């Protein structure tokens, strides 16, 4: 609305501006025209002026001529001469001025001709006069030619002037018109400017108003947002909003508290990155559904990372989600507790001795406890929803039914109805009497919302009463009959007395029967009055305490010697029931003859007719055994847990989906994870090498489904990325209902054992190869010869024999090496220790190797020093030759091998070294090359002809000397083998 008005104004302003420009242009153009016209008017005036001047000059010239002719006085000649140039100038001017007008031009030309003739005549006459021929001159004048010219001149000038005046009139009119137009345009312009100003003023006003309104709106928005934020901050619900990319836009204080961080730290962050444990949970799915389907969702779910029930209301918008959430744990628990209490209360209701039925005011059965159901031998479903008076309880007597219906109607009016109901027959046909009552239950003390029908089986009491009454009546009759016979025998009276005693006994008997059920209950049944004195206790209490039942009446717990703490506990619970009128529950200890027992007590209120709690009925059950069993279970659980926590075996419990439910500390220690990083995570995806995941998962599924694979072996990956091999014992986990809930696996880390076994297998394989290869040569060769396949005498036979011999040589070398090494390592070889010179040994060794070095075209450089040492010279030479042999074998042609020695005074050893420029040894192999049959490259043995036992033998020899041997190397640069021999005093 406002916008369109603005647009209208803007259009007005624009068009006004445009017309102003138009008017301006027109005015300017008009002004140009006006000045043009004004110039023309001036121009016309000038033409008239000039032509008049011309005429007057001509007159002056003529006058001068006349005067001179008449007087011959030269003074007259002066004006005559003076006027002549003015005339010529005037004609020139006229010519120029009338250039635009061809008619005038023509007149001017004619004028010029006339003037020149006139001037000629004047000049002629004047000359004649000067020459003293005045008469001749006058004669010429008299011819009147000059006058005729003059007249014509006047006529022409007149015409010119007239024309000009006509033009002047026209031009002045035009000039006036231009003035009028300019005036008009200026008026228009003034009007337009005025309008423009007015519009601008309006626009300004309107814009200011708009701006003010906008500012106001902004302020209101800010204020309302502030208010909203205040509300969101103060509400008990957690609130946060997310944008469409799941980033937090806003969180209130409560949400921050729940997430455990200040709300600011979440803003702009992605919810699933901040709360990764929520991913994949019902909330996650609900959020996504709300976002995708753009509908609000309410969800209440258990969120295990916080051990909480959360109620979540998710409201989507085009730009994200708004989420209110509430900790529903307590409500859940409360609801559960109420449910539990309802269940218990229902149990009390169902099993109470009284017959209780809950009815609508119309008499329809809502609830019925077991008493009447048992009486009728029907189940609850058959009575539910039926009118109370139609139940088989009342027999099939229409009279009784009518009476009950009437009673219900009366009770529905608010009456408390109570009467005896004799002669009701139960399912088995036994007649029973009831103390029947119908109690209306009020809401707000006015409306009856329920009726409670109660029946108490008083058959036994009734019978006793009837008997008693009968006896009394009988007695009275007797008394009446025998009043007059007062004096009858004393024996008669005695008899009556006995009979009365018997009747009273009968009554007592029946009351006892009535109480039997209660009395014989194993549960303690106690009734307290408001002062918490005992009104009634059953015999169970006597059994428990050894105090006879009769001694309890009128006493309180303290009187009976209960420890004051427990007495207080029970008293508090009872007071609660008295105050609230609701059933109370208590678990407490109590002393008994058998020591301390644990009781679970239900404290039920008993109301008087005015709905006041008159007394409470406590029914206490001995749960000591139950408690002990619970404790035993807890103890067993603790023991198991202790075992699992401390055992050096990996224990992992998985749920059905394969997520971790339990891991023991050893598992965490082995994998390097913390419990938080492990619990609830998918086991197979997190802990298994990717290549094995699928297979092991399948095994797990079979374990869950069919209880297969009790033993299994697989690798797991630690946090550091190392693989450990675990041998598992797997078992299904079942719940109390026997359903499979997951698996429990106990595993042994067999990584080292596994590696050892593999090493052993490799070793055997290598040895096998080393021994079998020469044997193959020997056996194959000999077989060819022996079988005559290749004739011995042939050249091929000779070749075959050489193969066998080479094989045999190689076998001998290997066997010797093995035996040598074994003897060295088992200590069966004793070194021949003697004083020797390092230099001698080095020279001997290098001499032995010189031929080989020459063959390989390798320079062998030995720098001997005459150090004295104690050692087995031959063995040390063996070590040096072995090392030199290796160095030569692994060196390229033209390179150098060095043998050197130095004394290390600090360690008191001689250190020998053999250095080459060969290909070098990888760092991780530097130690392993001293193992038996180990070669850097498994193929080296055949290529280089070694047995794989040289270095182990060297190590043995040096160790026997008490020295050490090791290698240092740089790949591609060469290796250096060192060994030390201790310097001993010689």
């Amino acid at each position, binding site marked *: 609305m406002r916008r369109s008005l603005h647009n209208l104004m803007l259009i007005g302003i624009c068009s006004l501006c445009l017309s102003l420009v138009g008017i301006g242009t027109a005015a300017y153009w008009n002004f140009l025209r006006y000045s043009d016209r004004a110039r023309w008017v001036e121009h016309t005036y000038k033409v008239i002026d000039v032509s008049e001047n011309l005429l007057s000059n001509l007159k002056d010239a003529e006058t001068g001529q006349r005067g001179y002719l008449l007087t011959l006085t030269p003074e007259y000649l002066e004006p005559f001469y003076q006027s002549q140039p003015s005339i010529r100038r005037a004609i020139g001017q006229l010519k120029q001025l009338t250039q635009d007008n061809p008619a005038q031009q023509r007149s001017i030309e004619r004028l010029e001709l006339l003037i020149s003739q006139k001037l000629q005549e004047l000049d002629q006459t004047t000359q004649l006069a000067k020459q003293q021929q005045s008469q001749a001159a006058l004669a010429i004048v008299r011819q009147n030619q000059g006058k005729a010219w003059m007249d014509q001149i006047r006529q022409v000038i007149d015409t010119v002037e007239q024309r000009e005046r006509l033009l002047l009139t026209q031009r002045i009119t035009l000039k006036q018109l231009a003035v009028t137009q300019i005036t008009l345009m200026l008026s228009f312009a003034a009007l337009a400017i005025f309008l423009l100003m007015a519009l601008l003023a309006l626009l300004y006003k309107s814009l200011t108003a708009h701006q003010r309104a906008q500012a106001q709106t902004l302020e209101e928005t800010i204020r309302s947002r502030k208010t909203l934020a205040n509300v969101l901050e103060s509400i008990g619900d957690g609130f946060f909003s997310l944008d469409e990319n799941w980033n937090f836009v806003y969180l209130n204080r409560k949400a921050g508290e729940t997430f455990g961080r200040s709300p600011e730290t979440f803003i702009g962050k992605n919810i699933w990155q901040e709360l990764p444990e929520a991913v994949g949970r019902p909330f996650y799915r609900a959020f996504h559904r709300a976002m995708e389907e753009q509908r609000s969702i309410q969800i209440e779910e258990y969120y295990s990372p916080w051990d909480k029930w959360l109620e979540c209301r998710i409201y989507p918008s085009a730009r994200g989600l708004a989420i209110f959430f509430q900790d529903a744990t307590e409500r859940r628990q409360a609801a559960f507790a109420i449910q539990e209490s309802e269940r218990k209360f229902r149990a009390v209701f169902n099993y109470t001795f009284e017959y209780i039925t809950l009815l609508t005011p119309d008499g329809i059965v809502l609830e019925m406890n077991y008493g009447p159901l048992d009486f009728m031998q029907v189940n609850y479903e058959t009575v539910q929803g039926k009118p109370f008076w139609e139940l088989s309880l009342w027999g099939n007597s229409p009279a009784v039914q009518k009476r009950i219906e009437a009673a219900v109607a009366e009770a529905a009016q608010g009456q408390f109805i109570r009467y005896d109901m004799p002669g009701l027959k139960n399912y088995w046909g036994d007649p029973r009497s009831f103390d029947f009552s119908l109690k209306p239950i009020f809401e707000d003390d006015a409306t009856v919302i329920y009726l409670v029908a109660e029946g108490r089986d008083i058959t036994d009491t009734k019978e006793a009463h009837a008997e008693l009454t009968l006896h009394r009546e009988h007695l009275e009759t007797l008394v009446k009959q025998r009043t007059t016979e007062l004096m009858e025998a004393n024996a008669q009276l005695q008899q009556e007395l006995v009979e009365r005693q018997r009747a009273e006994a009968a009554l007592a008997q029946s009351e006892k029967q009535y109480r039997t059920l209660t009395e014989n209950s194993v549960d303690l049944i106690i009734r307290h009055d408001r002062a918490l004195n005992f009104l009634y206790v059953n015999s169970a209490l006597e059994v428990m305490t050894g105090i006879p039942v009769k001694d309890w009446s009128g006493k309180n717990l303290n009187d009976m010697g209960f420890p004051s703490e427990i007495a207080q506990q029970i008293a508090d619970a009872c007071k609660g029931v008295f105050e609230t009128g609701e059933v109370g529950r208590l678990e407490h200890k109590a002393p008994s003859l058998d020591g301390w027992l644990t009781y679970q007590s239900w404290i039920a209120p008993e109301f008087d007719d005015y709905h006041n709690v008159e007394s409470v009925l406590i029914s206490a059950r001995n749960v000591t055994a139950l408690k002990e069993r619970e404790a035993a279970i807890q103890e067993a659980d603790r023991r198991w847990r202790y075992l699992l926590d401390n055992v050096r075996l990996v224990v992992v419990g998985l749920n059905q989906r394969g997520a971790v439910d339990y891991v023991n500390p050893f598992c965490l220690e082995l994998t390097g994870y913390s419990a938080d990083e492990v619990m609830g995570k998918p086991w197979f995806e997190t802990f298994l090498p990717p290549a094995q995941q699928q297979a092991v998962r399948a095994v797990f599924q079979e374990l869950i489904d069919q209880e297969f694979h009790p033993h299994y072996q697989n690798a797991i990956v630690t946090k550091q990325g190392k693989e450990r091999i675990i041998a598992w014992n797997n078992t299904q986990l079942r719940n109390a209902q026997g359903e499979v809930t997951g698996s429990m696996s106990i595993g042994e880390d067999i990584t080292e054992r596994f590696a050892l076994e593999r090493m052993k297998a490799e070793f055997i394989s290598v040895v096998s190869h080393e021994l079998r290869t020469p044997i193959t040569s020997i056996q*194959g060769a000999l077989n060819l010869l022996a079988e005559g396949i290749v004739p011995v005498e042939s050249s091929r036979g000779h070749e075959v024999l050489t193969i066998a011999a080479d094989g045999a040589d190689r076998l001998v070398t290997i066997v010797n090496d093995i035996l040598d090494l074994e003897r060295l390592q088992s200590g069966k070889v004793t070194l021949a220790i003697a004083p020797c010179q390092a230099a001698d040994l080095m020279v001997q060794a290098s001499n032995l190797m010189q031929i080989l070095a020459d063959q390989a075209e390798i320079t062998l450089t030995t720098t001997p020093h005459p150090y004295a040492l104690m050692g087995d010279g031959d063995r040390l030479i063996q070590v040096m030759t072995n090392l030199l042999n290796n160095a030569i074998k692994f060196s390229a042609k033209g390179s150098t091998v060095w043998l050197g020695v130095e004394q290390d005074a600090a360690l008191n050893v001689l250190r020998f070294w053999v250095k080459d420029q060969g290909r070098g040894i990888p760092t991780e192999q530097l130690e392993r090359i001293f193992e038996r049959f180990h070669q850097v490259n498994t193929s080296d043995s055949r290529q280089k002809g070694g047995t794989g036992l040289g270095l182990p033998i060297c190590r043995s020899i040096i160790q026997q000397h008490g020295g050490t041997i090791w290698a240092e190397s740089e790949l591609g640069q060469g290796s250096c083998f060192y060994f030390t021999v201790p310097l001993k005093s010689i």
Partner: protein
Amino acid sequence: MKRILVIDDEDGIRNLIRFSLEALTEWEVMTAASGLEGLAIAQDQPPDAILLDVMMPDLDGIATLTQLKLNLSLQHIPTILLTAKATDESEELLSLGVAGIIVKPFKAQALVNQIKQYLSWED
């Protein structure tokens, strides 16, 4: 006439196999002292069968076998592995798609018989 290629780095054993086969059969025997050489010969003159030693320097028997199986023109050639390793590894080797395994040491006639049996070659 069948043509068989023997690849073994041990000169003695390679020669013994050649002698045995040449003496006991009509087959044409080609020999190679390394996996690389063997592959080159096989490519050049495709044999009807290959006897391949497992433990060799550089390109060992398993690597050579892999190369053979990756080569479209050679992958169909039946290959018998020769090994001096412990016998309990032979099952693992059999799974590599070889015609058979012959364990060293061996006698000439038995070698020939075994080759014939593995390749179903008649005399």
